[in-house]
């Protein structure tokens, strides 16, 4: 989508509308991409006594994925240090409502990619929420991030038709903060684990 197409859809009611709230600076909207900012809620991965994160709920010692993460919040302008090798879940500052015929790609801006932080996420048409970002520092040095910094860029692509995103049955619906993985809620898992046990 071009800038003009995006601006035409911005804040338009109905399924074709695009909402980016808060859009602190209309200058964030570029010709091809829109800059998005680092959000203020983080889930920091922590070491536990378990040797791995498991998904088999019936295993003795199974722990919810949530227990491997610690929440922490910041205010706009405050800092967050991302250490090498650390996984931190966060979101964009902006809550985005995508039109039902547009999907988004979210990538880190090159200033941050060059520091070893790379994000590449596809967001479905009709999505509602702050975009989830999985921050990982591939570099050798801790990097001090600033809440609200334009860390990401969103590229919008128009599809030929509408796609219904779905409601609460989607795993990550209307998110305003990072949520841990729900991989253990995969409906196929019990079947797969049964297959695995029978071998």
């Amino acid at each position: 989508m071009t800038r003009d197409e995006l601006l035409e859809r911005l804040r338009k009611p109905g399924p074709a509308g695009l909402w980016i709230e808060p859009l602190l600076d209309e200058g964030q909207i570029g010709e091809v991409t829109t800059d998005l900012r680092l959000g203020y809620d983080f889930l920091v991965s922590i070491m536990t006594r378990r040797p791995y994160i498991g998904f088999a709920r019936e295993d003795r010692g199974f722990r919810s994925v949530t227990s491997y993460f610690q929440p922490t919040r910041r205010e706009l302008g405050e800092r967050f240090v991302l250490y090498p090798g650390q996984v931190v879940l966060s979101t964009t500052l902006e809550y985005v409502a995508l039109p039902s015929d547009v999907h988004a790609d979210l990538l880190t801006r090159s200033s941050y990619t060059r520091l070893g932080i790379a994000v590449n996420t596809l967001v479905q048409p009709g999505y509602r929420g702050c975009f989830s970002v999985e921050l990982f520092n591939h570099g050798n040095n801790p990097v001090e991030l600033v809440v609200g910094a334009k860390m990401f860029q969103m590229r919008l692509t128009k599809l030929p038709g509408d796609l219904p995103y779905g409601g609460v049955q989607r795993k990550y619906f209307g998110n305003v903060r990072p949520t841990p993985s729900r991989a253990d809620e995969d409906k196929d898992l019990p079947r797969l684990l049964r297959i695995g046990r029978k071998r």
Partner: protein
Amino acid sequence: MHPRTDLELLKESLSDLAHTPYFNRALEEHTQALLDVVEHVLTASPSYDDEIVRQLADKVWTTHRYLEGSTTKESPYEIEYCLRFAISEWLTRDCIVTTALTDEKDFHLRIGDPWDFVETTLDRYESDLPQSRLIFIGVPRLYKSLPLFCCALYHELGHFVDQMGEVTETSLLISPIDAGVPEQFHQAMESFRREHFADLFAACYVGSAIADSLDAVNPDAGMTLTHPPTQQRIDLIRSFLAGETFQELEFYQDALKRRGLPELKCRFDIPAIEAAFDDIRPHVLEGTEQLHGMFPAGWSYLAKSIHGSGAAWSVGATRLEIIRIVNDLAEKSIRNASLRQLWALNHDA
């Protein structure tokens, strides 16, 4: 334990806290001032009376508890943001609001610093004290991401304003409990008057949300020694919001006027959140009155959604899912308002 021992232990813990990276400058200032006061008391010669030391230790303990809570970095900033506006309309001094998540079910709001006590009792302490006051808020941990469930804090703010200005005490001085009421009920009636004030104070900001909260907590609660029956409280709130005049309201307004405080009046504006929330996105709040109005708007929307008259997204959703989503949208609406304000106030020179 012995108060001096407690102060020694608190001094150690405060020293650790003083080096935490999680404090803003204002909290650092208060923590350092607390350390200086504690050091002074422990080393003063001749020493202060044990009763003064004991009471100071209690206060430092409380302050320490909240400062420690402030380091967890899980504060519900959104609620703090709303309350700061309300607080500024009633207290003239600068205040720093900080929240601790608690394991209790109750909310509370109180002055968290011991500076009044220090000024009044430690007559040999000569260092400057912070100019701002610390206000501590306690929020049940389970509600940290459910701002609509936290409008009880406006009720607690009402108690706080009452105690600072002795509003209900003034009303009792001018208009005491009817002499016809048996003596043994006077204390309860006085307590009821305090509760009604706090309820009406809350209603000034969050409108019917405070009545909805009371109804949700325990609609059938009867009279106790400290609290009127829930229905009576709700009826009074609704009368106030309907613009009716009644004797108790006149007592409060008269007392507030005599104490040089603002009157009880509606200070909220209900934002039209339906279009945004039906579309599962936050609403753009305009101004402080809409900020407070987010609470009654949110409660109304929540009730409608839970009872089956909500938007398409709520069809098939569980009660808890609806509660979470509506609260999340309310939280994000408030947070976005805060972000826009911070951004606008700090433009480049």
